[in-house]
């Protein structure tokens, strides 16, 4: 039982252990891959909190027609700002591409909680001229 000899000094392993780093990096990569498609093409609006809202799975799809009305009265189609006069024709163009009978022809509305209702009605009127009858008013999805 002599004093235990420490062996580390003899052969120093000079390589950095990269395994944990790669581990963390891969996790970060996956997290950002998941989050990124959710962040783009969304106008930042403060949606109203409402009881009795139902899940609208289709509103997140690539081909969903989403109109946003912000608090300062601007209208957006997807991520681009459009004027009310153009909105009808552009929505009609988008609807014309949905030739499939089973396609979801609902137009989704992301209107700010404090947006002027007159502006919202103007936007609804504009899409009404495009022949839209189904409207989905998106609301805050956080838990109440």
């Amino acid at each position, binding site marked *: 039982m002599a004093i235990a000899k420490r062996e580390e000094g003899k052969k120093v392993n000079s390589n950095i252990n990269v395994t944990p780093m790669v581990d963390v990096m891969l996790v970060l990569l996956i997290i950002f891959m998941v989050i990124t498609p959710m962040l783009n093409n969304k106008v930042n609006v403060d949606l*109203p909190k409402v009881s009795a809202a139902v899940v609208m799975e289709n509103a997140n799809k690539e081909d969903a027609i989403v109109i946003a009305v912000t608090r300062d009265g601007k209208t957006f189609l997807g991520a681009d700002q459009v004027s009310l006069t153009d909105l009808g024709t552009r929505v009609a163009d988008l609807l014309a591409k949905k030739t499939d009978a089973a396609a979801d022809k609902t137009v989704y509305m992301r*209107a700010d909680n404090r947006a002027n209702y007159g502006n919202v009605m103007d936007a609804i009127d504009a899409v009404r001229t495009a022949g839209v009858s189904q409207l989905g008013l998106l609301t805050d999805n956080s838990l109440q």
Partner: protein
Amino acid sequence: MGMGGGGTGGAVSEINVTPLIDVLLVLLIIFMVIVPVTPKGLDALVPQPPKKNQPEIQNDRTIVVQVTSNGAGEPGYKINDSDFAKSAITAKLEEIFATRQEKVMFVKGDANLDFGKIAEVIGMGHTADVTNIGIITPRVAAGQ
């Protein structure tokens, strides 16, 4: 050395759960990020203009919920032409539609209001199990 566990010969019989917990925690975080993103909303309809040469069908059973503006104060609520308190609307709508086959109502809001107030009323309609809620815009009202 007697009881010196983890020595040269003794195999460790416990499963190493650390990587398992690692992976599960990452999956938990990823799903925590994804789940709240499912969009929710309220279904609404936009009445289309009546076809030409078609007589308008007068219907005295139509229910219109109006939201009127009181300047800066709380908005006023009306079902058809009688005033109601905000808290009494859901109950009244439930009473009206309990015996009806066609669950249709219309929402008409003052243009000066915030969109959130009208979204609340549409939510109340859905709470009262009204499946078809139409939004009356100025051009719908004008019959265009």
